[in-house]
C-alpha cells in the first residue's frame, strides 16, 4: 500500500512539474494570441492592450499559474480565444473521439499481437516465424503517414470508405461511426503491430528458454496448460509495462493520423490551436496527454507491484 | 641505535560508519622479508591492505616507511595487487598499455621509452615480448596475474601487497607465480605483504605470519614457531585446515 501511495505522490509531483514547465514555456513564447492583431495596422495598440487585459494576459507569471491551477481544480480549463468558448467542453468531445479511435486500435492491436507473438515464439526457426518476422519488419519500415495517405487514396478511388469526419449526415449512428473508424484504426493497428509482436515474442521466447520452462516440459505437463498456466504469467512482467505504456499513449498516439485522415480528435484540435497561438488550449491538451502518460506508467508500476513479488522485496 | 625497520605500523585503526574494520594493528617488517596476514573473511585483512596502499585513510595510527612517516608522495613505493586480476585489468587494453599505465598516468617517459620498459617488464614476469600487443582478455588467469605484477613493478616499488592473489588459480599456476615472486624478491630485494584466508596459499613465501580476527592481530610469529607452538585457537584451526605445510625452502 505504501508503495502505491508513494508512486501516486510521485506521479502527482511529476504532473505539477509538467504543468509548471509548460506554463513557463508558454510564457517564454514570443507572441501571443493577439500578435497578429498587433501587427495589423488597422487595429489600435490600445485595443490590443485592452483585449489582453480582458483575457488576463498581462498579469505576472506566478499569479497566472496559480489562477490557472485553481481553475483547473475546479474543472475549468480556461478560455479558448480562438473558439471564443471555455476550453473544457471543447476538449471533452475531442477527447472522446480520440479515445474511441486509439482505444479500438490498441485493443485490436493487442488482440492480434498476443497470439501472433506467442505463436512466433513457440514456432521459432520455422518457416512461419521467418515469414512473419520479415513481413513485420517491412511493415515497421513503412511510415504511418504513407499508409494513411495510401488508404485515403484507395478510399477516394473505390468509395468503399468515407474519407474524413466521424459521422455522415443522416446516417445510422453506430454503423456510421464504425465505417468512419475503419480506416484510421487500420492505419494505427498496422503501425502498432510490429513493435508489439516483437515484444510479445521476445518475452515469450525468454520464458520458453528458461530452465523453469524446460523442467516443466520435462515433467510432462501438457502443452496447453503449460502455456497458459505457467509460461504466460511468467512472461507477463515486461508485457504489463508495455500495456501500461500503451494505455498511457492512448491520448497521444494518433495525432498525425487524425490530422491526415480527418478524424475529429485531439490531434487536429491541438494543431489548430498551435497555429492560432491559442495557448489555453495548447496548455490544456499538453497537460491532459501528459496526465494520461503518467497515469499509464503509474498503472503499470502498480500492476507490476501486485504481480511480481520480487519488487515487493525491495 | 638499531636501524629502523623497513615498515613500521603503530596502532592502525579504521572504522566505516562507526563500525571498526581494523583495530590497533601494530607490527614491523624488515626489508626483503615477507609477512603473511591470514584470517577468516571479515577479519580486516583487505582493509589493512588498502590502508597501507593509500586506498583508504586510516582513522588513527601511524605508518612509517624507511624511517619516514607515510605521505602521498610515497605512493609509488607501495603497490597493491588486487584480489581479482581479471577485473583489475581492462580487458580491452593490450599488455603494453596495461603495464605502462601507471607511468602514463604520471606522465613519465616517452612513447619509445615506455615501449622498451613494457617489454622489459613482460620479460621480468616471464611473458613473451610478442604478447605486448595482445589484449588482456586473451590471457589466461595466471598470465593476467603476472601482468598485474608487471604493472605493479612499473613504478619500481619497494613494498608489494598481494591481496588474495592466489585465489582462483589452479595449483600449477600458483606454483609458477610463487616462484616468480620469490625470484623477484631475491633479485630486487622486494618486501611483500601477502593477504589470504588460506594459510597454505602463503606458506611458501611468508617467513612470518600474522593471524587476524575481527580486525585485530591475534598472533604474530615466524613460520616455524607458528607451526610448532600455535598460541591462539584460530591459529590452530587454520593450521588444521591446511593439508600439508612443510618448512622447506623457508626464508630466514
Amino acid at each position, binding site marked *: 500500500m505504501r508503495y502505491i501511495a508513494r508512486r501516486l505522490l510521485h506521479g502527482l509531483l*511529476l*504532473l505539477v*512539474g*509538467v504543468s509548471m*514547465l*509548460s506554463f513557463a*514555456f*508558454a510564457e517564454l*513564447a*514570443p*507572441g501571443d494570441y493577439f500578435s497578429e492583431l498587433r501587427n495589423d495596422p488597422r487595429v489600435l495598440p490600445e485595443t490590443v492592450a485592452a483585449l489582453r487585459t480582458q483575457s488576463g494576459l498581462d498579469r505576472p507569471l506566478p499569479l497566472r499559474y496559480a489562477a490557472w491551477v485553481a481553475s483547473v481544480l475546479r474543472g475549468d480549463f480556461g478560455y479558448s480565444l480562438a473558439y471564443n468558448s471555455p476550453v473544457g467542453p471543447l476538449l471533452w468531445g475531442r477527447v472522446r473521439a480520440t479515445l474511441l479511435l486509439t482505444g479500438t486500435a490498441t485493443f485490436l492491436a493487442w488482440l492480434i499481437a498476443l497470439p501472433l507473438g506467442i505463436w512466433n515464439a513457440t514456432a521459432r526457426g520455422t518457416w512461419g516465424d521467418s515469414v512473419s518476422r520479415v513481413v513485420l*519488419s*517491412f511493415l*515497421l*519500415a*513503412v*511510415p504511418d*503517414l*504513407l499508409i494513411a*495517405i*495510401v488508404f485515403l*487514396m484507395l*478510399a*477516394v*478511388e473505390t468509395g468503399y470508405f468515407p474519407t474524413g469526419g466521424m459521422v455522415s449526415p443522416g446516417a445510422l449512428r453506430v454503423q456510421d461511426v464504425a465505417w468512419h473508424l475503419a480506416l484510421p484504426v487500420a492505419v494505427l493497428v498496422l503501425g502498432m503491430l510490429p513493435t508489439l509482436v516483437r515484444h510479445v515474442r521476445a518475452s515469450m521466447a525468454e520464458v520458453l528458454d528458461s530452465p523453469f520452462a524446460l523442467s516443466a516440459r520435462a515433467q510432462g505437463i501438457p502443452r496447453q496448460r503449460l502455456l497458459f498456466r505457467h509460461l504466460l504469467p511468467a512472461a507477463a512482467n515486461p508485457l504489463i509495462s508495455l500495456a501500461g505504456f500503451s494505455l498511457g*499513449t492512448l*491520448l*497521444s498516439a494518433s*495525432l*498525425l493520423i487524425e*490530422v*491526415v485522415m480527418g478524424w475529429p480528435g485531439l490531434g487536429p484540435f*491541438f*494543431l489548430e490551436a*498551435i*497555429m492560432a*497561438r491559442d495557448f489555453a488550449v495548447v496548455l490544456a*491538451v*499538453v497537460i491532459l*496527454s*501528459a496526465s494520461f*502518460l503518467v497515469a499509464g506508467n503509474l498503472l503499470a508500476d502498480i500492476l507490476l507491484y501486485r504481480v511480481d513479488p520480487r519488487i515487493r522485496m525491495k | 641505535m638499531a636501524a629502523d625497520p623497513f615498515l613500521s605500523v603503530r596502532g592502525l585503526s579504521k572504522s566505516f560508519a562507526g563500525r571498526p574494520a581494523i583495530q590497533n594493528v601494530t607490527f614491523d617488517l624488515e626489508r626483503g622479508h615477507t609477512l603473511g596476514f591470514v584470517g577468516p573473511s571479515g577479519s580486516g585483512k583487505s582493509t589493512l591492505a588498502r590502508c597501507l*596502499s*593509500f*586506498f583508504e585513510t586510516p582513522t588513527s595510527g601511524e605508518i612509517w616507511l624507511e624511517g619516514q612517516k607515510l605521505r602521498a608522495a610515497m*605512493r609509488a613505493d607501495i603497490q597493491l595487487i*588486487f584480489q*581479482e586480476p*581479471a*577485473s*583489475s*585489468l*581492462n580487458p*580491452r*587494453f593490450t599488455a603494453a598499455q596495461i603495464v605502462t*599505465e601507471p607511468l602514463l*598516468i*604520471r606522465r613519465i617517459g616517452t612513447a619509445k621509452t615506455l615501449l622498451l620498459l613494457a617489454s622489459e617488464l613482460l620479460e621480468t614476469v616471464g611473458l613473451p615480448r610478442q604478447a605486448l600487443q595482445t589484449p588482456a582478455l586473451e590471457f589466461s588467469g595466471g598470465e593476467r596475474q603476472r601482468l598485474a605484477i608487471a*604493472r605493479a613493478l612499473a*613504478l619500481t616499488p619497494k613494498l608489494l601487497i598481494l591481496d588474495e592473489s592466489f585465489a582462483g588459480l589452479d595449483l600449477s599456476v600458483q606454483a609458477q607465480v610463487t616462484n616468480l615472486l620469490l625470484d623477484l624478491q631475491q633479485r630486487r630485494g622486494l618486501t611483500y605483504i601477502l593477504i589470504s584466508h588460506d594459510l597454505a596459499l602463503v606458506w611458501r613465501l611468508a617467513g612470518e605470519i600474522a593471524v587476524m580476527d575481527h580486525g585485530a592481530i591475534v598472533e604474530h610469529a615466524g613460520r616455524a614457531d607458528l607451526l610448532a607452538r600455535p598460541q591462539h585457537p584460530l591459529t590452530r584451526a587454520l593450521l588444521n585446515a591446511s593439508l600439508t605445510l612443510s618448512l622447506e625452502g623457508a626464508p630466514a
Partner: protein
Amino acid sequence: MTRRTKIAAALVFLGILHGFVVFAGFLAPYPYAEQHREFPYSPPLSARAPEVVFLLGTDAYGRDVFSRLLYGGRVSLFTGLLAAFLSLALGLALGTAAGFYGGWLDRFLMRGGELVMALPWLYLLLAVRAFLPLHITTVQAFFLLVAIIGGVGWVRPARLIRGVVLSAKERGFVLAARGFGASNAYLIRRHILPLTLGVVLTQATVLIPQYILAEVALSFLGLGVAEPVPSWGNMLAEAQQYHALVEHWWMLAPGLAIIPVLLDYLLLADALLEKGD
C-alpha cells in the same frame, strides 16, 4: 551471414543512400524550385519535349519530382542524423556526469529527464515548435528542427549511458588506475567512455530513423521546412490531392523513399544487437 558482414552491408547501403542525397547537386537533373508550368503532373519517364525528361514525373507546378526527392532527402536524412547526434552528445555528457559524479547532479538530471519524458513526444515537439516564431527562413527552420528534435530526446540515451557508467566506475581496473593517481578526466576518457560505445551505437540506430520521421511529420504539418525548399515531409503534404492521387501516384515517391532508409537502420540495429565481438 555473419554479424560483421551484416553490419558492413547495412553501412555500405546507408552510405549509398546518403551519397545520393549528398550529391544531389550533381545528380539532380533540375533545380528543386524550377517550375515547368506547361507540364504539370507529368508521369515518370515522360519526355514532354526533346531533352526534357522527368525521371519521376512532375508535381502540380511542373517541378521535377526526382530532383526534389534528392534535395528533399538531404533535408530529411540530415535532420535525422544531426538531431540524433545532438541527442546522443547531450545524453553522453549528461549521462556520464550523472553516473560518475552522482549526488545532487544525478538526482537533478534524472528528475528533469522524467519531466521531459512525461510529455508525449510528438505533442512536445509540436508545442516547442509552436512556441517559437512561426515564420522563419529555411536555414533557421532546419537548425531549429535539429535543435528541437535532438534537444528533447536526450533522456533515454542519458539513462542508458548513466547505467553503463555506474557499473563501469566500480570496476577493478578503474579503481586500480585511481590508485595510480589517475584524475577523473583520465578515468572517464580512457576507461569509462569506451564502454559506452555499444549503447551509443545501438541508440543511434534507433534514434536516427525516429528523428527522420519526426522531421517528415513536422514538415508535413507545415511546421518544419517550408516551400519552395523540399523535404520529404512537405512533398508528402502536396500529395494530399486524393481525388487525383491514383493518377499522380508518383507523388508518393518521398514516402516510398523512406522505406529503404528505415529498413536499413532496422537491419543495422538488429545486427548490432546480435551477440558478437
